[in-house]
Structures are given as C-alpha cells and as structure tokens.
C-alpha cells in the first residue's frame, strides 16, 4: 500500500474536529490595560513604601544608591510584570473552557493567530528602551560611586579564616572592630591571608572580595554616626558564618582619641587624617 493511500484511508476513518474561530473580543485589550494599570499601581506603591521597611538603616550614600536603584528598577519593571500577569490572568478568566466528555476531550480550538509583527516590534522596542534606561542608570551610579573624594582616608582590611582585622596605615593600630570617622570617604584596601573572603560592611552598601596576594579597592562614604555589621559574603570554610564583626562610625574627634588610646602617636594620627589622595 502506498504512503498516499494509507494516509487517505486513515483520514477517512477519523472524524475531524471542527476548527472553531473565536470571535474577536473587542473589549479584551482595554480590560487587560485596566488590569495592568491596577497591577502597576500596586507594584509602584510596594516599591515606594516597602524598601524602607526591608533594608537596614543606610549608613552611606552607596547604600542609599542601592536602595534607590532597587526602587527605581522596581518601578520600571512593574508595568512589564503587570502586563504579563494581566494577560495571563485575563485569558484564564475570560477564555477558560471545560472540555467535552467531562473535560477528557479538549474544548474547541482558539483563534488561529500565529502572532503579530506589530505587537512583537512594540514589545521588543519597549524592552530595548527599558534596557537602555537600566544601563544608563547603572553606569551613572557606578561612575558617581567610584569618583575619588578629596577627604578620603585609607583603611587596610585583611580577611583570614575566620576573622577580619583592620589597620590604619601609618598609625600602627590594628583592630578587629572597625572604627571609622564620620563624613569621610573610606578607601578600603582589601586582601586575604588564605582563601577568598567577601568583605561586606552591610549598611555601607558596598562589597568586595578579599583575595590572597591582591589588594582590592572599594570606597564608601560614612555619612551617619552609628554602628553597622561587617560580614563575610563569600563562603570561606568551617567558620564562615562566624566571620563577622561590628563597625562603628564615630566623630572625627572620637576617632582621633580612639587611635591615640590604641597607641598611635599624635603625629601619625595627624598625617593619617590627611592621608587622602
């Protein structure tokens, strides 16, 4: 039996399922837009009011940038997510069909559309614009953060299993609790004694790995008195979870007093305070 004969024989035996073209739902797009707007508003409201309750207290402009970026990106992404959710939800509510034979057989077919060039182009165009916005925002923030300020001071950070030690070059002071003066840009020179650690002064909003035999740099500016956490963000073995300590931001006078109490000479404190590049 030839192939064509066999195919025709089978085609005759089977009852065709009648294709059903769905009527065009004139109001559907408008309804989806309404739902999208509602979802977007919810998303924007959450973005505006939730982060202040979720993020820890900001101790630096860098942390503030991270929170701001979170808010702005959420607002930018909210309409996209809202639209996808709205289409999915509306389709489910409006066009849900129970199949024949106690839902064993499928319902009649949906609209035989293979897509729309217009919608696809619009969608891609919008994503390109959004991506450009994200990129420009990120680059602007990044260049602002890496800018060197005139009042910067140097702090050497050494990670090792499973401790942080901090030293203030030139003063001979080393400590395991980070003490920083207020209102200064701090240049952290981060290195490691053994494996890779992640230096993360949490409320300062910056993070850099401590790698052996390399000095990594990260800068953050202290703009508030108070204490913050320093954690290790890169798994480093047995006591990784315990590799954390406290940092404190104090006034410049308190800072000088503290350095002196740790045995630093007054001349070294003087030159250290002016050590900014």
């Amino acid at each position, binding site marked *: 039996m030839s192939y064509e004969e066999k195919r025709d024989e089978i085609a005759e035996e089977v009852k065709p399922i009648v294709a059903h073209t769905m009527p065009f739902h004139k109001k559907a797009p408008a309804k989806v837009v309404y739902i999208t707007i509602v979802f977007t508003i919810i998303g924007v409201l959450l973005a505006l009011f939730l982060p202040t309750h979720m993020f820890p207290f900001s101790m630096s402009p860098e942390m503030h940038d991270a929170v701001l970026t979170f808010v702005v990106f959420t607002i930018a992404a909210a309409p996209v997510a809202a639209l996808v959710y709205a289409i999915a939800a509306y389709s489910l509510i409006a066009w849900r069909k129970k199949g024949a034979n106690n839902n064993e057989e499928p319902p009649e077919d949906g609209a035989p559309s293979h897509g729309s060039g217009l919608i696809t182009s619009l969608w891609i165009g919008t994503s390109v614009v959004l991506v450009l916005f994200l990129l420009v925002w990120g680059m602007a923030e990044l260049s602002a953060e890496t800018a060197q300020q005139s009042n910067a001071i140097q702090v050497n950070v*050494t990670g090792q299993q499973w401790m942080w030690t901090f030293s203030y070059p030139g003063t001979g002071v080393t400590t395991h609790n980070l003490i920083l003066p207020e209102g200064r840009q701090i240049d952290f*020179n981060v290195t490691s004694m053994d494996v890779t650690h992640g230096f993360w002064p949490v409320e300062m909003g910056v993070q850099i790995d401590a790698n052996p*035999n*390399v*000095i990594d740099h990260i800068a953050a500016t202290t703009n508030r008195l108070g204490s913050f956490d320093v954690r290790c963000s890169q798994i480093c073995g047995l006591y990784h979870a315990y590799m954390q300590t406290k940092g404190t931001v104090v006034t410049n006078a308190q800072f000088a007093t503290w350095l002196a109490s740790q045995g630093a000479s007054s001349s070294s404190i003087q030159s250290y305070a002016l050590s900014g590049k």
Partner: protein
Amino acid sequence: MSITDQQMHDSHDDHGHHGHYEEGGNHHDTAQEKHRKEHMATWLFIFGDVVFFLLELFFWFYLRANNTAGMWRAANCTPANGKLGPTDEGLNTCTDGLFNPITHAIPKANPVYTIIVFALIAIAAAFVWFAEVQSRKGATKKTTHPLTALALFFVLAAIAAQFYQFQVLPFTTIQGTYASTFEFYMGSNVAHFLLALVIVTGLWSRSRLGKFDNGKWYQLHLSRLFLVWVAASCVILGLVTIFFA
C-alpha cells in the same frame, strides 16, 4: 495537500552510493546517513575540544600576564624576597606548593623535547591521512594496513616521548604557574594521544581485516579529522610553550 517532490527530497538523500561506504552499523540507517551523522558528531566533538583548548591557552596567557617573577610567581616572590605582603599585616610566606621557601632560580623547559613530541604526533596524523587518500583511491589492506601500522607506531612514539619529557623536565609542577601550566599542557597531550591510540589501534586492526577495502574510507576520514586536530592542538600548545615561555 500532497507531498511535493521537494519535501520528499528535504530529508532523504539519494541512496545511490552505498558502495563507497561501509555497510552494516546502525540498524536504522543507510551507510550514507551513518556517515553524515558521524561526520557531524566528529566535528561537534572537535568543537567541544576546541573550547577546552582555548581555555588552556587562556590559562597560559592569563597566568603569564599576571606574574613577572621567574616561573611565573607573583612579582614580589623572588628568592631575595621570601614574603608576600600586600598590606603591612600580610605575612604569606612565598613558597612552592609544599611550603618550601623559594631559594634558587629554576630553568625553563627544553624546547627540543616539545618539538619531538609534536613532530611525532603530526607524522602519525599524516600517515592516517595518507591511508585515507589511498583508500579513497581504492587501495586494499595491502596499502592501508602498513600505513595504519606506521601511524600506530608514531602515536606510541609520541606517547613515549611525552612521558620522557615529563621525566627530563628541570622543574616539577609545584614550582610556579609556568611549571603548572606547562605540565598541564603535557597532560592534555597525553589524554589526546591515548584517545588517538585507541582510534589508531582500531584503524590498524580493522585495516588488517580489510574493512577499508573497496573504497570504504569513511572511518579513516573521521579518524583523520580528529588526528589532525590532535596534532594541530599539540603543535599550537608546543609553539606557545616555546615562544611565550
């Protein structure tokens, strides 16, 4: 809707030239389909191997660029200065991989052995290629068997030469990243050569049985593709070790 000739032609090649291919194999296939698949698979395997190879080169040049002291240790890691100290607290001792301080300069590898190794594997690949050319011309096992035997001999010689080079190196793996990368390259050569050994042993054994007679050259062809790649990668790695030491 009927099936057009074009559609019929889309996925089925003509079935005319079985004579040029070895019969048998997968019960689903004509010999020609089998050839097409294996040809594609060989190239895909070589593609994966090329990715690995490029990363090997990346390791070499990255470590070379990162280090300025002898044997590619860190810049401050010289016999005169036994300490690595990025900050004033840093007291990492500058050691080899076994905590021994570095006390003397170490010579780099002799390129002669490298050249011998890649020459031997290149000759092996050339013999397989020659066997393929002969088989395409319709040669019998009288020609292919000696040729593949020679290829087998040179693969074995390449392996022996590679192991000999391991023996005579003036350094060991622990002495800096130059030593590490150099010996890693040699290890990857050995892995390639062992794979080549399996293949060429098969070619030799099968040519003895006359499996490549009567124009059934396609396994020789696939083997040749792989062997040429093995030889090429060995030559490139060798030249890198010589000119970018």
